[in-house]
């Protein structure tokens, strides 16, 4: 990538997940120029990493990839991946963003995505894209449908053996690539920085990530994905097919003792969805969801929940208090059954999925004059009439950046944020072509 001292666009979209892409496409469809700044090496956000999505159960990739491709090919959209926002501030009519291009150690222009480097690299590293359940190389293309389809080197693990450099047919490997800062000015911005899953390590009651068959919901997404680590659902401890799988809801949400009092909004539905998908891939397995309240509030969600019950997924009201290793890779749970004959139950499951809550993907901190709510998500100033409005004039927010949100709601909000941005531009004399 060449030196980009100062780039100028009508709009800046921070975050290249589904909300960011949708916002960018909506702006571009009105012929405004848009830059999408994405911190990862590929656009697509969390959605591209999912298996199938509720309540339609269509494959997540099939819905995300066309949007990714549309953004990548739109003449009005510029994708800036592997870029970190340093600061965003308003200077008069302009928003000025200072952005760091992290080095990929691979020349984006030259790389043809042939993966020869990846095949040759001798270093194997747990692949975060596969929930750490499979390996990748130290030089790698992030995942099969990544955009851009270009390699990058993970300097933490690279041993500088030089094999990739030798094998690259286009001499794209560049060990001397440096961090590059550039500024980007735009008249308006949409913040679509999404969410991160709560770290498992924080959860004392749930084993702090030390119990092998206690996995996160995102790891389960990978196990269920057709291009996942094992191509089928196996438990990580010993590679056996689990006969009983449990989902622990509110594993960190709605829990003041864990510092997250809010509802993470999507966990009920993704757990139900995962249970439904498991009932397809493991038809004989017992599937149990331990929950406080099932929050199936969106269009078609309640019917989806009822279908799951009809399909034989067990729903048990009660919060699992404690998880510990059982015999032979099993996981032991303790919860209180609220039935009259119930009381405390100690049960074992072969595999346990924690429906961990959602945390903000980005907090502005000192980098920009946006503040956050008590939940640490971006604060909105007019949640009823203009849910996309932030404290900064001309800066709008969409999707999970302003609180946990499912895909449908994120996409709709992205449309709303783009509309606010378009009308903001129109009011300032920016003319869409045409």
């Amino acid at each position, binding site marked *: 990538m060449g030196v980009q001292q100062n780039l100028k666009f009508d709009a800046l979209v921070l975050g290249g997940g589904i909300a960011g892409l949708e916002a960018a496409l909506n702006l571009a469809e*009105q*012929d405004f120029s848009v830059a999408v700044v994405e911190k990862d090496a590929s656009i697509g956000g969390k959605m591209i990493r999912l298996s199938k*999505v509720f*309540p*339609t159960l*269509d*494959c997540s*990739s*099939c*819905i995300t*990839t066309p949007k990714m*491709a*549309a953004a*990548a090919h739109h003449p009005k959209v510029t994708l800036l991946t592997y870029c970190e926002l340093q600061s965003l501030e308003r200077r008069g009519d302009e928003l000025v963003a200072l952005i760091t291009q992290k080095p990929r150690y691979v020349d984006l222009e030259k790389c043809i*995505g042939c993966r020869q480097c990846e095949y040759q690299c001798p270093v194997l590293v747990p692949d975060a894209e596969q929930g750490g359940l499979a390996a990748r190389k130290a030089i790698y293309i992030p995942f*099969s*449908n990544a955009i851009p*389809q270009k390699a990058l080197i993970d300097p933490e693990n690279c041993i500088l053996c030089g094999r990739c450099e030798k094998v690259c047919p286009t001499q794209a490997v560049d060990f001397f690539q440096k961090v590059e800062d550039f500024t980007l000015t735009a008249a308006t911005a949409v913040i679509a920085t999404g969410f991160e899953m709560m770290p498992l390590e924080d959860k004392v009651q749930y084993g702090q990530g030390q119990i092998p068959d206690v996995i996160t919901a995102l790891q389960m997404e990978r196990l269920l*994905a*057709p*291009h996942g680590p094992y191509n089928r659902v196996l438990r990580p401890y010993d590679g056996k097919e689990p006969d009983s799988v449990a989902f622990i809801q509110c594993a960190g949400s709605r829990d003041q003792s864990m510092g997250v*009092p*809010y*509802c993470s909004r999507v966990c009920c539905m993704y757990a139900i969805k995962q249970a439904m998908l498991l009932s397809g891939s493991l038809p004989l397995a017992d599937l149990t969801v331990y929950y406080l*309240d*099932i*929050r199936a*509030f*969106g*269009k*078609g*969600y*309640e*019917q989806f929940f009822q279908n799951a019950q009809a399909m034989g997924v067990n729903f048990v*009201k009660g919060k699992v208090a404690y998880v510990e290793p059982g015999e032979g890779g099993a996981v032991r749970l303790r919860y209180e059954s*609220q039935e*009259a004959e119930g009381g405390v139950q100690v049960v074992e499951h072969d595999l346990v999925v924690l429906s961990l809550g959602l945390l903000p993907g980005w907090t502005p901190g000192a980098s920009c004059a946006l503040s956050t709510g008590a*939940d640490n*998500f971006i604060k909105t100033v007019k*949640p*009823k*009439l*203009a*849910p996309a409005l932030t404290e900064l004039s001309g800066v709008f927010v969409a999707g999970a950046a*302003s*609180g946990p949100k499912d*895909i*449908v*709601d994120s*996409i*709709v909000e*992205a*449309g*709303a944020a783009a*509309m606010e941005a*378009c*009308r903001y531009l*129109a009011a300032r004399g920016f003319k*869409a072509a*045409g």
Partner: protein
Amino acid sequence: MAKKKKKTEPAPEAKVGVYVCHCGGNISDAVEVDQVCQHARRVPGVVVARDNMFLCSDPCQEMIIEDLKSGLVDRVVVASCSPSLHEATFRRALARAGANPYVYEHANLREQVSWVHHGAAATEKASRLVAAAAAKARLLRPLESIRVEVQRQAVVIGGGVAGLKAALELGERGLAVVLVEKSPFLGGQVAQLQRLAPFGETAAEVISELTGAVLKHPAITVHTCAEVEDFAGYIGNFKIKVVRQSPAGAVYADRLARLSRSGRGLGEYVPFVGVMPAAIPEGREEFDLEAGAIVLATGFRPYQPRAGEYGYRDFPEVVTLPELIRQLAAAEGAGDTLVLNGRLIRQAALIHCVGSRQIPGVHAENEGGYLNEYCSRTCCSATLYAANQIREQYPKTRIFDFYRDIRTYGRGQEELYTEAARNGTLFFRFEAGEEPQVSRNPHRTSNPLLVKVRDVLTFGEELEVPVDLVVLAVGQEPNDIAHLVENLKIPVGADRFLQEVHPKLRPVEVSVAGILLAGTCQAPFDVGETCAAAGAAAVKAAAILTRGYVELDPFVAEVDLSRCVGTGACVEACLAEGALALVNLEVEGQMVRRAQVNPALCLGCGACVAVCPENAINVQGWTLKQYEAMVDMIVSDEYLEERAEG
């Protein structure tokens, strides 16, 4: 465009590329994809057949583009999911390759094969469908899309929050907007509320801000007491006949009385009325509107409990949540105990999920045979908000909350639940089918009603609560817009809300291009979600309107002048006024009568095709010859016989 002489025979040079998708197992789990490719390679005209895990991914689109660019193929068949999802994706890929986007055919191997069939039968069917698609592709010719000038005006139907917000967004974007509202008022259902959960904004401020901006906006025209009577046209050029007249009957009598009691004037907000922007018309007025895009914002109505449902109508002490909100606004503020209509409310029960989350076999259907199986999304927060309001203002009024699941999912909502617990609201949880029973109180307490419940939280014990008031948290139902649905020919879901094309790919669009959904006509939403949906609908409308033109599919009738003999049968059969006519033309030096198509008016239905004795007229991209070729492939076994070739 229709005058050039075109070939109707298969282009002998047609080189069809077939691309079969695994859809990450969605297809390949049921269909032997490599076998389908093998079969496809034996279909005449097919020069290459490839498969891939995700054809829709960027690298795979690149692969197709590469095959086109290198000249290997000049017709493309993609066999993947439903064309409704990806036909456009691949057409765009063809365009990126510099090819004509219409030399493309799609075979649906997911929704119509792998998800419904298994085993060898699935693979055989897939192969036949792919072969049929290839046979059609061989006969495809490049087409030019039709460019239609767009009326740079949007019509918004519905003057509630969704309609007002959508109108305002488009007006601010510099586009002309006409808002049509059936009632004399703006503000919709939100005007029937007081404060909005969870943050407590008032309905008054929300609606006043919207109506204030809308009514003074130079680009926005508002018609109240106005209904859509008739509708015609297509994206970019809709024609809408509106009738404006005094509303029939006494539906708005209560609100009009309230308005006149309030002493407020036109354009001013009146609680539980909304804003009346203009006087009610005396006579009947009809006018036509033109629109490039239409935003539907027809909203919802609260579920009306049946007589006897939780004692509703049987006992005057049973009210719905909207009724309570209205009564609370009029409540006397004296003392620590709530007084409604002169009655002291010491204990009140709130019951959730009334008219929502109904389960077939468990709950009774309504007169229309419907069950509201969906969750109404907003009632939990609204109910808890009301509970907190009462507890704060009238601390001696006890609140008992009966729920199935508390669904305080959104920002600031879980806090409402916590706050309710802190202020002493007592919760009971019941299972579906074991709804609380409301009856006259037989005990010697002075509370008139008794609520009985088998409480899950108390280990399934039966509990009784004597109360002075029962509040039913009723859900949302779509407004009755049968006339509009029929006129616009838009789909309605099983839940009776308007149905979007796809909840994620095209969440605010319906199957009729140019018509968009905003707010609760689509599904239950709260005010913030409604405004977001209105913004999303507005951005799609703006994309249609700002350019001043849209491009339409070229699938219209075309006359083959080498075959047309001017019988006029097609003109007689034509269903679209003005789309087909017989004209005098000079063909090879002779003046003759020949059929001619007006492509902007042609609907592309093909009524003309069936009646032409010469097969001289066809719908471009959907010709009779192409269908015949597809049937030939479906019945043929030639390409399936692998043993013959070893």
